[in-house]
């Protein structure tokens, strides 16, 4: 039992005080918390736009906002959620906090670059907020030309610059993670003893480093076209608008794997610890993360089936898109096998994990629908696609993120969150999510286009269901915000390993000291060796 109060022991939280000690910190744990605040802000900002969208779509004729304003709403919702929430989310918060701990290191390889990454996200965010407050941007988060370059009268350049700068935040995080995993592992921490969360963040980092620079140069070309009319995407000069789409999606498709891979890593951790079993097929799951990262770069043309891309290319991209589903499916099978005959606990993180498995499977299977060239001609730019990616991004990533946040909260804060409220909000989120997005599959299949501010009367029932779901979902998301903050003051104090998990992060105190480990750990066991953990605990008692 922990008898001393946290305040008496030196932790990364009380090692130094004052705003400068946070804004100039090199501690990966503090930087993780800086990111946590930033992305939480952007999540709720993006959520406000989602609320306005759903309110507009309550009635067929709209009436809440004009068509032009509606275009700004869905654009800002997409831009903020993707570039300023989802892409940084898990790697920059939980990854930053736990990667060094999990490998037994004192910090990341480049702590100052880590801090710079955070500042870049914030500065990029400032550009995006300026664009938002000055009048918004209405091109859709995809910025397709020639609308974004020749016709839109909104703040395209400011938004583009914001994303450009935030992109470097992502690149530097990825670079830092790759070097850290290669060069900073503790003695005995071989590649195949790494927690699967580390493998997932490593694979994500590969994508960040290889893909993001392409959208960086694409945004420069976009800005050049819009401001100087360089002609590169302009048919009047011989330019090709489809070139923009190739350059854009070369990054933006792998970007969706940046958004889901870390979540898949969290899932492996949760499924293991809450069934008290090693992950079934560890090596296969580890390699599947890398496979997703690699294959994810070969399929981007499936966003362009109806763009004017050649049919031959469409065929190749469609065919390859089926392969990228395989490693994801493998993970789901392996988690299921992990659960089999496990000692299952229904703590909140596990509830999120269960929710993830179902929702991610639906999202993944509907991905196969849209990967099929013929079907996609019918459902492209409809709510079917919107539902598909929200099942993955929200039903998948956000559920896993919340699961991870609850799981690691005691380690981060030294406090437990209130289990009853947490279970309730997990349920509210799950129900709200399905009510919001399942009707959208039907809407899309029936022909409701995306990005439309109004619709025929016969779609109203489904839209009302979706909006009702969104209000439930909003309540569900607000609850953790409240009780996590509550727990910082009033939550029960947590010990070093409240879940009985393996993993080096649980061998140090909650919260950890600034330097992570009093003695550099020497690793002798596999990642999910619960038997060894039990033996170690027994030896301590004796």
């Amino acid at each position, binding site marked *: 039992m922990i008898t001393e109060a946290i305040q008496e022991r030196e932790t990364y939280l009380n090692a130094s005080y004052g705003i400068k000690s946070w804004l100039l910190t*090199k501690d990966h744990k503090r930087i993780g918390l800086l990111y946590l605040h930033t992305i939480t802000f952007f999540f709720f900002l993006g959520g406000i736009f989602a609320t306005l969208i759903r309110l507009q779509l309550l009635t067929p004729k709209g009436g809440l906002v004009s068509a032009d304003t509606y275009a700004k709403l869905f654009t800002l919702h997409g831009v903020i959620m993707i570039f300023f929430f989802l892409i940084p989310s898990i790697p920059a918060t939980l990854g930053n906090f736990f990667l060094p701990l999990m490998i037994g*290191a*004192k*910090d*990341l*390889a*480049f*702590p100052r670059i880590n801090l710079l990454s955070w500042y870049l996200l914030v500065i990029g965010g400032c550009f995006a907020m300026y664009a938002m407050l000055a009048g918004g941007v209405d091109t859709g988060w995809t910025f397709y030309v020639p609308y974004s370059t020749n016709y839109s009268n909104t703040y395209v350049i400011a938004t583009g610059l914001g994303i450009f700068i935030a992109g470097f935040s992502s*690149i530097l995080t990825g*670079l*830092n993670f*790759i*070097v850290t995993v*290669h*060069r*900073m592992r503790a003695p005995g921490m071989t590649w195949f003893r790494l927690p699967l969360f580390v493998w997932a963040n490593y694979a994500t980092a590969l994508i960040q*480093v*290889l*893909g*993001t*620079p*392409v959208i*960086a*140069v*694409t945004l*420069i*070309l976009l800005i*050049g076209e819009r401001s*100087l*009319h*360089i*002609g*590169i995407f302009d048919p*009047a*000069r*011989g*330019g*090709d608008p489809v*070139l923009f789409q*190739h*350059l854009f999606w*070369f990054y933006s498709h792998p970007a969706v794997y940046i958004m889901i891979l870390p979540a898949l890593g969290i899932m492996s951790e949760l499924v293991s610890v809450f069934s008290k079993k090693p992950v079934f097929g560890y090596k296969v799951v580890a390699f599947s993360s890398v496979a997703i990262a690699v294959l994810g770069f070969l399929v981007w043309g499936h966003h362009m089936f109806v763009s004017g891309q050649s049919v031959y290319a469409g065929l190749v991209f469609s065919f390859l898109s089926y392969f990228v589903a395989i490693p994801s499916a493998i993970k789901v099978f392996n988690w299921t096998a992990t659960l089999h005959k496990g000692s299952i606990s229904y703590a909140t993180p596990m509830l999120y994990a269960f929710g993830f498995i179902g929702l991610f499977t639906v999202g993944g299977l509907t991905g196969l629908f849209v990967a099929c060239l013929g079907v996609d001609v019918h459902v492209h730019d409809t709510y079917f696609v919107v539902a598909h990616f929200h099942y993955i991004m929200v039903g998948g990533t956000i559920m896993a993120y919340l699961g991870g946040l609850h799981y690691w909260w005691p380690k981060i804060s030294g406090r437990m969150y209130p289990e009853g409220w947490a279970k309730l909000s997990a349920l509210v989120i799950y129900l709200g999510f399905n009510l919001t997005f399942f009707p959208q599959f039907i809407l899309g299949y029936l022909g409701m286009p995306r990005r439309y501010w109004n619709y025929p009367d016969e779609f109203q029932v489904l839209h009302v269901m979706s909006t009702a779901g969104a209000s439930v979902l909003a309540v569900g998301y607000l609850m953790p915000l409240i009780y996590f903050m509550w727990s910082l003051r009033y939550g029960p104090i947590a010990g070093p390993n409240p879940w009985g998990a393996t993993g080096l992060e649980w061998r140090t105190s909650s919260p950890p000291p600034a330097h992570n480990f009093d003695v*550099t750990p020497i690793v002798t066991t596999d990642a999910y060796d619960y038997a060894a953990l039990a033996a170690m605990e027994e030896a301590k008692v004796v």
Partner: protein
Amino acid sequence: MSSHTELPELQEQFETPTQQKEASTLGMWIFLVTEVMFFGGLFLAYTIYRRQFAGAFGLASNTLNVVIGAANTAVLICSSFTMVMAVRAAQIGSRKALIVFLILTILFGGVFLGVKAYEWNEKFAEHHVPGPTFHLEGTTAQGPAQLFFSLYFTMTGLHALHMIVGEGLMLFLLWKAYAGKYSPSYYTPVDIGGLYWHFVDIIWIFLFPLLYLIARHQH
């Protein structure tokens, strides 16, 4: 950690200087890969449009001064040579040679940028800058000809920007070298600065033939 107090250049998060050097070097190489992908987008645009508008691109390319372009390429290669000699000087602990070679590298880089500025100025004077005043003699394909120059200015412009950053890095290394910060046991910044410099040279090694030598067999 006592070794951290004995070795002030050893950062807190690393256990040994070797680990620090390996991590820094790997980090720079990964950064260079991101640069490959960054310029790669431009090379893609160039490839697509050159295939489609070979005639106009050839004509536009021939208005560039190939002698100046080739000479400038040689200047940059000289700067890479002096850079690698600078790294070698640091490796063997020769502070004076390191300083001299860094200064030479900076000078060669400066010459390159100066010549580039001159070339750009020529293009402005000849109305080969894309925009309302653009005109290229000898072709009706004014649009594609402008595309060539858009790519020319964007690619050489971004390259020049990277050169300017490189000059800044070299000045930083020079300052530290002058202060005696580098020795055979610690010269990593010189090493990885060199990697960056050579990479920018490699980009130009491709830009020169792709921009200047498209259709030199046709006058």
